[in-house]
């Protein structure tokens, strides 16, 4: 099994989980879904500079070839932004739950089908 296959299937698994969770009706599950989504995207961004092993991203005397440093910088920016966004969503969900007494995304009060979920 190649490294590319492993990384690609990891991204695919994270993405599938995130789509399933984001489409759920409760804010907590949606927050988890968004977190998984950001993991999938960050892994993907990390891989766009092509996967290479054992090469430094910055200049070094011994190295003859280098890894692409730019995707790593992009991922760093993306991590910071999505981390802040996730924190905001958590607070927002909590406030919404406290104000309306419902953790449904559409703000509706508990429905019968969902009480077991």
């Amino acid at each position, binding site marked *: 099994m190649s490294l590319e296959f492993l990384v690609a299937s990891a991204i695919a698994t994270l993405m599938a989980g995130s789509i399933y969770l*984001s489409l759920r009706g409760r*804010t907590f599950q*949606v927050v988890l879904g*968004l977190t998984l*989504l*950001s993991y999938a*995207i960050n892994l*993907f*961004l990390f891989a*766009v*500079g*092509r996967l290479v092993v054992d090469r430094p991203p910055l200049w070094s005397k011994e190295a003859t070839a280098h890894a*692409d440093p*730019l*995707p790593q910088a*992009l991922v760093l*920016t*993306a991590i910071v*932004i*999505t981390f*802040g*966004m996730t924190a*905001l*969503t958590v607070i*927002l*969900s909590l*406030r*919404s739950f406290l*104000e*309306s007494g419902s953790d449904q*995304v*559409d*703000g509706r009060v508990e429905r019968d089908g969902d009480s077991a979920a």
Partner: protein
Amino acid sequence: MSMSDHLMIAPVVVPAIVAPVAMLLMRRRRDVGLLVSLGGCVAMLAAAIALFGMAQDDAIRSYALGAWPAPFGIVLVLDRLSATMLLVAALLAMAVLAHAIVTGADRKGWHFHPLFHFQLLGINGAFLTGDLFNLFVFFEVLLIASYGLMLHGQGALRLKTGIAYVVVNIVGSALFLLALGLLYGLTATLNMADLAVRVAALGPGDQGLLRIAGLLLTSVFALKAAAVPLHLWLPRTYAATMPVVAALFAIMTKVGVYALIRTVPLIFGASAGAAAWVPAPWLLPAGIMGAVIGFVGVLVARGMREQAAFAVLASTGTLLMPVSLWREGALAAALYYMVQAIFAGAALFLVADVTMRRRGQYADATVPSPRFAGQDAVAMAYLVTAIAVVGLPPLAGFVGKLLILDASFAAPGWPAIWATILCTTLVGVVGFSRSGSSLFWKPAAPNADPVAAVLRRRTDFVAPVALLALLAALTIAAGWVAAQTRVTAAQVMAPQRYVAAVLGSAR
């Protein structure tokens, strides 16, 4: 580099400094904080006017941040299109800020002024940047500020719709990153001018991926622009937030349209192989459906704010129809329509605010209420704004629609565009007459409670009337403005000049 070269960065730097300073001052010295906030807005307007004047010589200017040469560092690019958008944003911001201060809306929460300036920072940056990842960052800045502004004043309904708004935009940002990753993987660059060169040089093996990247990128911009079917987040969000905030948001959907106009002719233009004009077949149906759903929404809305939200949707739809043709003449007409639609949409939200403040418990619901103080003046303002939004003579909306009809004549799909614009205008007229007569004409039920609020001050009319005056100016100077948009469209549709300006100026 002279001083005037550095002026280009002022629309980004001024709000970035004003926002934290206003935040620190607001706690102790509110009056000084207000002065700083207003002063920042005036400075931004002055810079925008100066930049608009600079762009008149038809040159495209590029500003390398940190003096890093073009494809490696981030560049800001000023051309006619970005200068026009900066000026529109600054004028709108001035009116909205004045209205917020006059009505005391900025006192409903702690951080209105800093959030307002961070929002402007994001909007101005998105108009100026020449780098796709930087565009993503500025989009995030304007979104994060908009989350705060949208929740300004709070309340259960606002929180509930706020979650949907935030979640939709986070998913949109994730898709944006996905598209950027694909483009970077293909071309190893994120500078827009450099992308234009490298996309055209891609081999046949990469065409499929390029097409996917192009469609992903444009669908993110369509989500920001609230193009149908990616519009579902807009009506409830804009109807639930404070009208003065929604008035500022009137420019946000147009930022999405701006990003489409900026990137498609440049990166996905005629030379882009399989991705040439990649969103074109999707945008026309999206525009038609947007205009239909928007104006039908105007007809069925139960409140003035909801109606204004659907009016924003309708104007974006009307705007996307000529844009989707990707022709110089149609783009010029679209730009004229866009400028007036931003002011008209904002004016409608501000008039809704003025009405709500006088109708007490009846708020903005389109039901008959007993007479309230200043009813005639409010009704007049609503009438004029409705004329502007729906596009009846004599205001600029009519000129815009006429230009669109004229420019799209004989283009592929023109019967659909003509039929949509003419029919939806009729639906809009019916919608506004219906809601206007329920709001201001029909007598209330005999046993209706009298209006609780009595507001006699007229100062809150200043901002909406100023916006309407701007619309009147756009009509009177329609010849000059249309000539401006024609040369702007010519510049946008000649991407090789943009590329030469950015990459050629590398030092």
